[in-house]
């Protein structure tokens, strides 16, 4: 039996982000959550392995570290076909940076899933966009890892991974147990996530609650404090000014376009690396 662990992050739904219009900042605590799109692709990869008869029996555990409300993405993972969902939550886990997140996930896998064969993560989450938790979790578990997978295949007990990294198309292979991150921006449609079936949601909730583990159940030291132990500290978060005092042109299209090129043609031509005539357009007609 292949036991696949899929690490799933709940991220704020960008379209629902409540912005404070006066300060221009994000009221993140009140934002609705959703499953990180890259994690969704990782789960899709796990589901496809499970559906493939040549893989043999497969069990999928979805795990998330986050606040209690992150339970929702684990129900969603179950609705999509994960066999188990586990939420790692504790006030002392709050404020974990990528390094501490890897430690917490690592603790869960080492202590509670010793049979884990394949660990899948999204390559990069849509909120903090670090791409670090996957590689650091592999380091914590001391297992091999391959990042940015676009396609994976089980071959004689190893995993073979196709990936596209910095303009190189690569085929990699490693023995299991191992960790693979699924490309968050895969151009192939292979791991485009399926939609959740409504019966799946109903079934996910009929199966009972999500297993919830606090730091003690996980086996973390009683003095564990993710915020304190994270090597990085956030000094300040702000939202950059995006609204520009731009110039608004109205009127006939031809006139607007001429103004555009007369006044800003240099910017365009320097980006093109090609000269543009800026004035005297009337004579050229």
């Amino acid at each position, binding site marked *: 039996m292949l036991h696949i662990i899929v690490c799933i992050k709940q991220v704020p739904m*960008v*379209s629902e982000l409540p912005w404070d219009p006066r300060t221009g900042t*994000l009221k993140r605590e009140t934002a609705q959550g959703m499953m990180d*799109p890259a994690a969704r692709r990782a789960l899709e990869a796990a589901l496809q392995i499970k559906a493939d008869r040549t893989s043999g029996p497969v069990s999928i555990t979805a795990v998330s570290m986050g606040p209690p409300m992150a339970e929702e993405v684990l129900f969603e993972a179950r609705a999509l076909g994960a066999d188990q969902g586990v939420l790692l939550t504790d006030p002392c886990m709050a404020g974990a*940076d*990528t*390094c501490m997140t*890897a430690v917490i996930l690592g603790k869960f896998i080492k202590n509670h899933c010793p049979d884990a064969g394949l660990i899948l993560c999204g390559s990069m989450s849509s*909120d*903090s*966009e*670090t*791409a*670090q938790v996957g*590689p650091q979790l*592999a380091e914590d578990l001391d297992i*091999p*890892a*391959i*990042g940015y997978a676009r396609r994976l295949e089980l071959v004689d007990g190893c995993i073979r991974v196709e990936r596209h*990294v*910095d*303009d*190189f198309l*690569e085929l*990699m292979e490693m*023995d299991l147990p*191992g960790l693979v991150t699924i490309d968050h*921006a895969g*151009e192939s*449609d292979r791991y485009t996530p399926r939609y959740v079936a409504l019966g799946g949601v109903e079934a996910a909730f009929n199966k009972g609650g999500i297993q919830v583990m606090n730091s003690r159940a996980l086996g973390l030291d009683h003095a564990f404090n993710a915020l304190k132990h*994270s*090597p*990085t*500290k*956030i*000094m300040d*978060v*702000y*939202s950059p000014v*995006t*609204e*520009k005092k*731009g110039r*608004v*042109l*109205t009127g006939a*299209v031809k006139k*607007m*376009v001429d103004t*555009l090129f007369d006044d*800003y043609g240099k*910017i*365009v031509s320097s*980006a093109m*690396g*090609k*000269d*543009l*005539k800026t004035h005297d357009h009337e004579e050229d007609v």
Partner: protein
Amino acid sequence: MEKQIWVWADYRNYFQSRVTLQILARATDLAKKTDAVVCAVVFGDRVDEYVAEYIAHGAQKVYVTDDPLLNTYNVESYAFLLSALVRRFQPETLLVGATRFGQEIAPRVAKQLNTGLTADCIDLDIDDKGRLVQIAPSFGGNLIAKIITPHTRPQMATIRPGTFQELPHDDDAKGKIIPISLPDHMPGPRVRCLKSELHPVRARKIETADIVITGGRGMGSKGKFKKLFDLAALLHAEVGATRPVVYADWVSTEALVGQAGKHIRPKVLFSFGVSGAIQHTAALADAKFIVAVNKNPNATMMKLADVALVADANQACSGIIRALKQRIRD
């Protein structure tokens, strides 16, 4: 002991990826503020040429492990070597280009050294205590975080390619080369590379293109949307699209610019008939100069623009094509 700022040298696909040179330039500024030495760290097989290049672009010292065994990029071996070197020479700061490979090796090294790492920085600074301030975006540039690594060393960051301007090539620059031999106890790599070939994919180009043209539903129809490709050909630009357009099948998913698609950072962005939903605008926070066309002057996209044309997107596109044909000098 002298303070050192290290830059891990990523030379693969050298002519495309200038990120190492860009970081060297910024490291030179930072080194002046903290009285530190700028060092490059190069691993590989027959890398003399790159070493010389890094010295010409600002590296004062170069640590080099040149060995036939390092002829392919391997995350595990490279991370092992880099961690070992850091333990030995204890630099204050270690900077890595946020290429995909850089973003694989850096977190592993940080974890091995139990130090902090900030991803994909768009700026670096030094605070009044001499600490490295790592400035990184999140939510596709909608938020910016300032991060420090107060207690552990080195302070690590990956740097987004294209963020800094490289220094001019200086043939007279002098740098000290410090050869480091491969340790005897290198662990065998557990990941085997079966194939690796240079394969630039066209679809990626939109992320690095200098000019991008995006279209939204305001273009009217699939047929009219095609006009954007005519404009793109004139401007040597790439074409991107909003989610409704992709779902309406006017253009393939690969063109999707947005939270779930491509992030772009062009010098000039032309935006046609895009209203500016945040899932879309989140991915273009780094566009330098924006020209937006929309019938609705109050569309969000128009407020993000440097120049906003209140017009039908499709007619304006035709107008711009006509004007360009007259203005482009042969």
